């Protein structure tokens, strides 16, 4: 096992550490940070915008570049949180709390450096974690049959919905709408076109990019424009020194260790990922601290722990995707979309059929983290200057790149009209408090769920009991039922109490 692990990692580094692949990782990190650092743009929007530039590359190179973009985007988001108190996504809200306080005390450099170092450590650990836990999980996944896969996807979608923030019932609705959107196009089995409204460009289904760019990228721009004050620039930040003091290290190394452990485990959960990890880590640090009152006033553990946790989780959330073919959050759904476009169906088979791809991606995670440290940290001055640009100049550029990205990937005017349509749709949903992330998960899984349901029911000759008769499927559905019960029961009780009070 041990030997296997290092042997496998060696395959990975052999594949990933070629001169050109390191170059792609580097470019990915740089452009990822470049976009991710822009105020109000989270990793999902960043990756959606940058997806097109990876399409021309080979499968491994494009995945490596995407992973680089992902880490860059996350790090860029932390930078913005610390310097201007503008979280680009939910997981950076936590970093804002103490990180921005540190920046106001002139310790932005220390906060940024600790964030990068903590993330790097977490990344190293999580790389080994993925390498160690990937193969056993993939071996389990090989026992899976269609009914089990169907139940697994149900479980994955339900947990993703439950663990995400916001209203659970609306998130379920969004998953279902996503599933429906995923079915648009020609039915592979009967050849019938479904929901194409007579538009021939929809025969191959709704493209991934117009959907994600419209619902994430464009809606975020519109949302920022609606705020009474546009995102501010980073004028007030001063840099005394970049390097953290000895005391900073002493105060934060334990937090980094705890964050790494917590994040690695939470990352595997469907729907967990970075958001849950950073919140959990912050709560933990506050609990174990000798003097919890320092939190919120620039406690360095409040930056170190969550940053390590969210990076570890970002990495381990690749495990369910690579072994089970199950994306656990919107970022992983994007990764899965990119893989499918490259002609790879993520799942246990990838590890056997394309070991270079699987292990190369694992190795590239480590390379990407290293890039962040050696390239990005010294460039911090440039990112700060970029942040000083007013938003009125930034957003037309962002919009233009979004639109060019969509068009260049599939030079077809319908794609742009769809983008506009999904932007309006996403905007309306945002007003009604519906998060777009569950919709993306459903969209990616829609065709897979239908196919596995079909196969399962053919095997059982139409008997739905097959989902309970097969042990793996039964266990997965039982877990799903428990999770639903845990969520629904207290809600019903609360509703009834409220109703009685009136």
């Amino acid at each position, binding site marked *: 096992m041990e030997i296997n692990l290092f042997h496998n990692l060696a395959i990975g580094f052999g594949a990933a550490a070629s001169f050109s692949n390191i170059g792609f990782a580097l470019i990915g990190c740089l452009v990822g940070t470049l976009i991710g650092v822009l105020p109000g743009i989270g990793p999902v929007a960043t990756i959606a915008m940058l997806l097109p530039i990876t399409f021309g590359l080979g499968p491994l190179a494009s995945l490596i570049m995407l992973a680089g973009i992902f880490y860059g985007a996350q790090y860029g988001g932390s930078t913005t949180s610390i310097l201007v108190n503008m979280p680009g996504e939910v997981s950076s809200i936590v970093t804002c709390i103490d990180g921005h306080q540190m920046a106001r005390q002139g310790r932005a450099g220390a906060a940024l450096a600790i964030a990068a170092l903590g993330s790097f450590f977490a990344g190293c650990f999580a790389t080994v974690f993925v390498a160690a836990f990937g193969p056993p999980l993939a071996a389990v996944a090989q026992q899976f049959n269609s009914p089990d896969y169907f139940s697994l996807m149900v479980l994955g979608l339900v947990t993703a919905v439950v663990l995400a923030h916001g209203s659970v019932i609306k998130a379920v609705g969004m998953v279902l*709408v996503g599933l*429906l959107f995923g079915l648009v196009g020609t039915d592979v089995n*009967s050849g019938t076109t479904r*929901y194409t409204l007579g538009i021939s460009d929809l025969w191959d289904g709704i493209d991934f990019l117009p959907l994600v760019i419209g619902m994430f990228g464009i809606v975020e721009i519109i949302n920022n424009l609606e705020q009474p004050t546009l995102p501010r620039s980073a004028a007030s930040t001063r840099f005394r020194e970049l390097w953290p003091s000895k005391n900073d290290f002493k105060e934060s190394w334990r937090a980094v260790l705890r964050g790494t452990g917590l994040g690695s485990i939470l990352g595997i959960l469907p729907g967990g990922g970075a958001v849950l990890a950073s919140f959990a880590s912050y709560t933990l640090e506050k609990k174990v601290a000798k003097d919890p009152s320092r939190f919120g006033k620039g406690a360095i553990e409040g930056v170190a722990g969550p940053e390590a946790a969210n990076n570890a989780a970002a990495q381990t959330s690749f495990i369910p995707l690579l072994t089970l073919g199950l994306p656990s959050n919107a970022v992983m759904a994007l990764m899965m979309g990119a893989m499918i476009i490259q002609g790879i169906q993520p799942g246990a088979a990838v590890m056997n059929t394309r070991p270079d791809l699987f292990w190369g991606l694992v190795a590239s995670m480590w390379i990407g983290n290293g890039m962040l440290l050696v390239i990005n940290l010294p460039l911090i001055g440039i990112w700060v200057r970029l942040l000083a640009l007013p938003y009125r100049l930034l957003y037309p550029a962002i919009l233009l790149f979004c639109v060019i990205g969509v068009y*260049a990937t599939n030079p077809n005017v319908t794609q742009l009209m769809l983008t506009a349509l999904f932007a309006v749709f996403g905007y*309306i949903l945002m007003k*009604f408090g519906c998060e777009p992330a569950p919709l993306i998960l459903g969209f990616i899984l829609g065709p897979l769920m239908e196919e596995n349901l*079909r196969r399962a029911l053919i095997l059982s000759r139409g008997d739905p009991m097959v989902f309970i008769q097969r042990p793996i499927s039964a266990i997965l559905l039982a877990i799903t039922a428990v999770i639903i019960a845990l969520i629904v029961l207290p809600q019903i009780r609360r509703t009834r109490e409220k109703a009685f009070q009136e």
Partner: protein
Amino acid sequence: MLRVKSPQDLGAAIVFIVIGLAGLYAGKDLSFGTASHMGPGFFPTWINFLILAIGVGVGLKALAIEGPRIEPFQLRPILFIVAAIVIFGLLINGVGMALSAIVMTIFAAYARRGVRVTETILLAAGLAVFSVIVFVYVLGQAVPAWWGR
């Protein structure tokens, strides 16, 4: 007396119900098949009924539980941003990257109040040059730079 307690939820409920009904209507000709031989309409029909059910559930919740109000819709940002995308789409095939980028940037700039005309024109020109160089020449994307090709 029925009173809407959560306007956001009511809005979401309407969206879900409309999608569910539209899905059922648009898919009414798809054959349902049987469980052992699922037709193209089997899975979508189930999904649409579930969406409808969720819509009704969210609607009932909107009447039962207090929730946040809907942030006012501001027409200016969304109108100009969407217009910018649509116009880019209408222009790109005919006039190429440079001119489309300029027109789009100008439209986008008007999504907020207090447009500075000179600044916007400079920005548009700068972005046009940048995107022609980066996307057309460096990344070699299949987009014409100027007019046809």
